[in-house]
């Protein structure tokens, strides 16, 4: 442990916070992997736009053009979060928590309630999902709480405390209703508790309690359409024209991909717009059909590399807050990959969880960009010995 205890230079102002950091510690790899993934996402947006319109992909208002706009927004958000001293986040974590709740309440009240879901809020004509941003804000707030309780995570009280922080936004998200995001909250909580060193006994007990509560949730909380979606993956052929349709078509598309895929904008199912929500939740099916196994493997490898970088930053962080943010972002990304891809491949139930970077959706991309930006900020603000 610390033999020498030396205070850092006291920051003297915003300029010092932004400028006085080790830009050489900027994790270039993390940035590159993220940009590559986002580029793949844009490529898929291009393909999907071609599927919808046939020709004029670059004309205003298309999925592809909106994707470009969001990519720029995400880049700006990333840069801002990188430049920003993350230690401020710690200080402001409680106000952030309140803002988070307010946003979720607002989206419940203002959300466009077409169909059954109130999760979309329209800002300047761009559809925006607050629950995506809520995930990152949640990670920050939890990281602060867990960092404060570092070394005390053996106690049940600390674990329960973390759960109590998650529950209000979790319920708000569930009310939208956005089952997928609510599951991400749980995954993030579990990942952060685990990486923070929470007692395995208590984690196990918590998991057992959750399992026990599942029948209740199934009966009283879930809507019929949610149940139908959750169970249809078990036997999509049972209702091939209804709930199982999406799955069957998606699996058909994936199978058609083969080694190299049909080629961009050449997927038979994708280009005939046969896949419902193929630009969002089922985008991986399009990717698998058009870019084939090799394309999928590239995506997996990029994700693996990205996660490795995130874990490295978490490991290097000298400050438990950094570790916790890294753990949260990594858990979030990993969980979303497994559930989204698993859903397309027919091994996971259908939930509306986006595939990070690839799924077309501004909020998801911006939210991850902010998360990675915070990690960069953490990476650059870990001073090292320079004797």
């Amino acid at each position, binding site marked *: 442990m610390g033999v020498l205890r030396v205070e850092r230079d006291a920051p003297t102002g915003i300029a010092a916070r932004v400028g006085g950091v080790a830009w050489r510690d900027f994790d270039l790899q993390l940035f590159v992997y993220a940009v590559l993934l986002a580029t793949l996402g844009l490529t898929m947006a291009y393909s999907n736009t071609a599927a919808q319109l046939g020709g004029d992909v670059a004309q205003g208002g298309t999925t592809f053009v909106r994707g470009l706009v969001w990519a720029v927004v995400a880049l700006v958000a990333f840069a801002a979060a990188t430049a920003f001293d993350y230690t401020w986040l710690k200080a402001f974590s409680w106000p952030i928590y309140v803002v988070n709740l307010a946003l979720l309440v607002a989206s419940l009240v203002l959300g466009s309630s077409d169909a059954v879901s109130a999760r979309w809020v329209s800002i300047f004509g761009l559809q925006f999902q607050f629950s995506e941003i809520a995930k990152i804000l949640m990670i920050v707030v939890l990281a602060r709480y867990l960092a404060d309780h570092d070394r005390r995570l053996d106690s049940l009280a600390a674990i329960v405390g973390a759960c109590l922080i998650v529950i209000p936004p979790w319920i708000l998200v569930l009310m939208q209703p956005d089952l997928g995001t609510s599951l991400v909250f749980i995954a993030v909580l579990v990942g952060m508790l*685990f990486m923070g060193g929470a007692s395995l006994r208590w984690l196990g007990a918590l998991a057992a309690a959750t399992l026990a509560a599942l029948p209740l949730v199934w009966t009283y909380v879930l809507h019929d359409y949610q149940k139908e979606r959750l169970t249809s993956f078990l036997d999509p052929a049972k209702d091939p024209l209804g709930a199982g349709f999406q799955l069957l078509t998606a*699996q*058909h598309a994936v199978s058609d991909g083969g080694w190299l895929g049909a080629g961009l904008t050449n997927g*038979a199912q994708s280009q005939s717009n046969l896949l419902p929500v193929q630009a969002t939740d089922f985008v991986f099916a399009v990717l*698998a059909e058009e870019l084939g196994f090799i394309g999928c493997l590239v995506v997996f490898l990029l994700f693996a590399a990205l996660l490795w970088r995130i874990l490295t930053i978490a490991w290097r962080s000298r*400050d438990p807050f950094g570790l916790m943010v890294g753990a949260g972002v990594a858990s979030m990304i990993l969980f979303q990959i497994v559930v989204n891809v698993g859903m397309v491949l027919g091994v996971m139930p259908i939930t509306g969880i986006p595939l990070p970077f690839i799924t077309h959706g501004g909020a998801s991309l911006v939210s991850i960009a902010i998360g990675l930006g915070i990690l960069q900020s953490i990476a650059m603000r870990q*001073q090292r010995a320079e004797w």
Partner: protein
Amino acid sequence: MSVLQTPVTHERRPVRFVVFAIVTVLALSGLTTRLVAMQLAGAPAREPAAALAPALVGRQIVTEPVPSTRGLIYDRAKRLLVENVPTFTVSVRPADLPLSQRPDVIGRLSGLLDIAATTITETIDGAIGSRFDPVAIAHDVPEQTARLISEDSLTLPGVEVTVDARRDYLDGPLFTQLIGWTGSIDATAYASLKSQGYLPDDRIGKAGVESVYESALRGMYGVREVEKDGTGRTLRVLSTTTTPQAGDSLILTIDSREQKLAQQALDWGLKLSGAKRGAIVVENPQTGEILAMVSAPTYDANLFSRGISTADFQKLLLDKNLPLMNHAIGDIQPPGSTYKLVTGSGVLADKKLGVTETVLSKPYVQLGSTLFWEWNHAGWGPLDIKDGFAHSSDTFFYQMAQRLGIARLAYWARQYGFGQTTGIDLPAEAGGLVPTDQWKLETLGQTIFPGEVLQAGIGQGYDLATPLQLVNAYAALANGGTLYQPQVVREIVSPDGTVVRPFTPKVIRKIAAPSWVFTTMREAARRVITSRHTYNFVDLPIVVAGKTGTAEFGLRDKNGVLPYHNWFAGFTPKNVWTKDNPTGDVSKPDSQLAFAVFIYDAGTLGNTATEVAKYYLQLHYGIKQDLRLPQLLERTNFYQGGR
């Protein structure tokens, strides 16, 4: 800047990092393995293609339902009444109709089919089921139009033309009330029938035997595999996995010849009297088989099978003469003097009156300060049961009702089948009403008044019955006391001709009275004719027994006169011709024919129902002699002249 290391302020847990990394690697490897299985191993874990909706993707093999043929309907002599004819239906599959082209396509369809664009939009948007299910927007499209649309599939994406079978009701309005019609399944019916293999654009029986025998008539969908191209057009049929099963056919108890004669008689009576509503029912008293059942006014079932317009439907729905109702089973009205059968049988069976015992008929019966008048305001002096029945003496039967009391009167009414549905195999049968103390207490909060007992004894006041209940009661009288459940479907026959369900008479009950009671009442009913209460009815060369009824209802007009219905119910003995049966013997319970005629709001000088019954019997027995008395059908009020 001091460059000394910031101390690590927390404990590092390498094991947990390693575990997290392992989980990550395992998860991604798992997904990769699954990908390998799906993309590279050739055989996906689940075979998805075959079950897909008509695909938009290249060529696809698709399973689709093969419609079955709905069963046919024959009369008892195997004359065809309903058949299936091909008809073209234009449908839209919403999933195949791109939103951007929707206004164009709907506009074109609107022009071709002559249906308002808004109506088409409403039909598509209001459709139940998945977006991949075709929504029928026009039935019975002319072949020319159908051809135009199906050849124009490029500019009409998502539009399909299918050939369906339409029900053709050969005799149109003659059988509408009985046979009913088929119509598009609605959302509520679909929800409950989905599990039985119904499709959202199915047609189901909605009235008459089409509805009651839906499950027998329907048959079973087959399943076949077809190859379709990207636009959903069928290229070829690959195989039929399940052969469709045609529905079973129905053989009615109805004789279409009798039905026509009955309708001819009723129409004549209605036309001459100016009455609008009526019914005639003919039954075989030995089996409960209904031989004819005509309800007026009627309408053409083909209107519905061709897809009725809203305007036409509104017209039928709002018509105050209720054409949509089968008046023979759905119209409950006071049965009037025909109900004296119940009072007479009851008072004899309960030994409250001897067969030859006479009772004084008089101008009125007084109860407190109220006078209950004889219909002719005079009476006939002392009468026995047969003469009381023959003259239809109200004062006689007031006294019989008093002797019985309301409870026994109700008992005998229910024995004869009043106050309950007969259970005939037709939908929307009404049960009528037999008043009791308990009923009145529950509905009006009081028990029956003594005066109401008198009313109940002559089929007035609260008494309500359907023409079917009446014919069934007189059929029981004619057969010596067995109340049969009337039936309109004789047999169910499978497509290959084997009888799936043979005819079996169903007995509701043996009426709890000794047979001499029925013999006496049959002779009383015969005397109604021989006493010339029914004018020249007796001059027919056949033996007929029956009873007239004139039942007041509704509200008094400005002259203080009530409108009234006419009834006539009766039967003929097996030995029907007077040359064989000169004494007019009806003592044997061997009748083959019972009938009841109901004319709503008759308002004629004589009893229109009796004239209609007479005309029907003339037609039925092929009697050349025409004894109809059209002058009796002159519109006036029988009770005019006041009381």
